[in-house]
């Protein structure tokens, strides 16, 4: 495992945009003075005539993207998750969501793994904000291959999509032939004792936790759930029915994200005990990403601990 290739999904985003841009001239990219960090700079290098920098003005960028979509283009508007989903929330809600315009929000630097920049830049609220917008699709891919596939799927899908990418390089565990479908989860490990549903960088932690739990005699079902909205309800219900216990794992606040989406579904359709692993109702802080993830319990070890307690 230690020698697995690692790629930050923000790099996957830049590479996927550049690849898609070569095929589709209606794909345009917008950024707010972060092209180097969001990796849209890769697209800019290839297609300078359709990469538009809006300067440090996210609200204007997002609403301008709406105008471009109304004129028939497929804009990908990028910034850090904090400033895309957070600062520009109301522009996304009113100028993109309400008119159902074909804009893709490519948000990088999601979660606490932003690291040293600290709490002001560590967005753990974006799933909650974006999920609340009617008609918005919300995706958080787990690795390089899934991230690239998600960008392509978002381009092909007609309607607003929020894509969340990470700054930290994470293991690439999918095979090249992986088929990503919006709204579909993926069973990575079959099991019957507890279902672990994860997305983003927590999916790989969940895979590892599944293996560790197997050694301890707990047979976990591990599910990757890249699309938070619309949720793959069928798969969640099937896993809950089979296991009777569900653990959700996300690099996001336990309020309003994957955990609450799963709880909302299960409480109405199949009441099942759930434990939510995520960032508790608190802010992050500065530190190396890996140390922060450990400190906030976003690790395979912590999943194992919770699962063992849950399965007592």
């Amino acid at each position, binding site marked *: 495992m230690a020698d697995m290739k690692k790629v930050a999904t923000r790099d996957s985003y830049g590479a996927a945009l550049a690849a898609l841009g070569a095929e589709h001239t209606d794909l*345009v990219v917008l950024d707010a003075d972060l092209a180097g960090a969001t990796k849209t700079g890769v697209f800019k290098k290839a297609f300078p*005539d*359709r990469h*538009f920098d*809006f*300067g440090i*003005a996210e*609200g*204007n*960028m*997002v*609403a*301008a*993207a*709406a*105008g*471009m*979509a*109304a*004129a*028939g*283009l497929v*804009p990908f508007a990028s910034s850090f998750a904090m400033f895309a989903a957070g600062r520009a929330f*109301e*522009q996304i809600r*009113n*100028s993109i969501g*309400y*008119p*159902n315009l074909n804009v893709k929000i490519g948000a990088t630097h999601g979660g606490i793994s932003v690291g040293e920049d600290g709490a002001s830049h560590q967005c753990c609220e974006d799933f909650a904000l974006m999920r609340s917008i009617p008609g918005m699709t919300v995706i958080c891919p787990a690795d390089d291959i899934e991230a690239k596939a998600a960008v392509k799927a978002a381009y092909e899908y007609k309607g607003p999509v929020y894509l969340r990418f990470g700054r930290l390089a994470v293991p690439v565990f999918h095979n090249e032939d992986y088929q990503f479908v919006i709204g579909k989860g993926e069973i990575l490990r079959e099991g019957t004792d507890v279902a672990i549903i994860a997305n983003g960088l927590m999916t790989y932690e969940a895979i590892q936790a599944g293996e560790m739990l197997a050694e301890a005699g707990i047979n976990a079902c591990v599910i990757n759930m890249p699309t938070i909205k619309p949720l793959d309800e069928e798969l969640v219900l099937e896993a809950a029915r089979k296991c009777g216990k569900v653990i959700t794992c996300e690099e996001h606040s336990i309020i309003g994200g994957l955990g609450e989406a799963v709880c909302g579904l299960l409480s109405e359709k199949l009441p099942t005990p759930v434990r939510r692993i995520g960032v508790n109702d608190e802010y992050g802080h500065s530190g190396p990403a890996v140390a922060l993830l450990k400190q906030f319990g976003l690790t395979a070890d912590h999943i194992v601990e919770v699962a063992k307690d849950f399965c007592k």
Partner: protein
Amino acid sequence: MTSSEKKQLQIAACKVRMGVIESTHGAKAGHPGGSLSAAEVFTYLYFKEMNIDPANPKWEDRDRFVLSKGHTAPGLYSALAYRGYFPVEDLPTLRHIDSYLQGHPNMNTVPGVDMSTGSLGQGISAAVGMAMAAKYQGKTNRVYSLLGDGEIQEGQVWEACMAAAHYKLDNLCIIVDNNGLQIDGNVADVMSPYPIVDKLLAFGFNVHAVDGHDFDALEKAFENAKKTKGQPTAIVMSTVKGKGVSFMENDAGWHGKAPNDAEYEQAMSELKAQLAEVEGK
């Protein structure tokens, strides 16, 4: 423009005003004041300036209009109805439950509305995006956006202005309806946006200050805008809020209030008299 053209525009503007009164009276709500102050510019844009086809509202190469001050939807809807986008008889269904005439412009329900707006400061950004798209697509269509003088207190307006000049959007023309009033009172007292012309000049616009009720002045400014290359144009219109209805003029109270039955009768009789006067010219 010829005197006959001008007369036709003046007639249309009277009708647009009547539609504003009909719709806000029918809605028992809505924003007549800023709809009436902009009646001439709505009329000029939809009856003379813009390259549009009411029979084909989604025509790809049409000029676009974004009502950034979305609350003055009654003015836009009235202009669209009289221009033939939908029946004038539907105007009184404004704001009614299940009516397609939503309280603020909805591009997915109202034929002819190019962008959904209502949250102030966002429409101009969408217009910037449309103008950038036209340039990238190699199209020659133009984009227009109408803003309120209160609206320009929104910081996003100036983000959009910066981008418009930066990207040399000479296919974009913004119009500021400087009627001097907003909900809480005089714009100068609430939060002064002045000097508006100087600010827009400093932001890199080709700026025209005109009487917004004078079709000759509007024509001159819009014609100049089309000839201006390398920079966006801003037309700052001096207007009277509530123009055309005596008791609504220059009264912030009529920003967002509908006429009752008696007020409706009075307003309509005043507008009918104005129409008869113009038609008799």
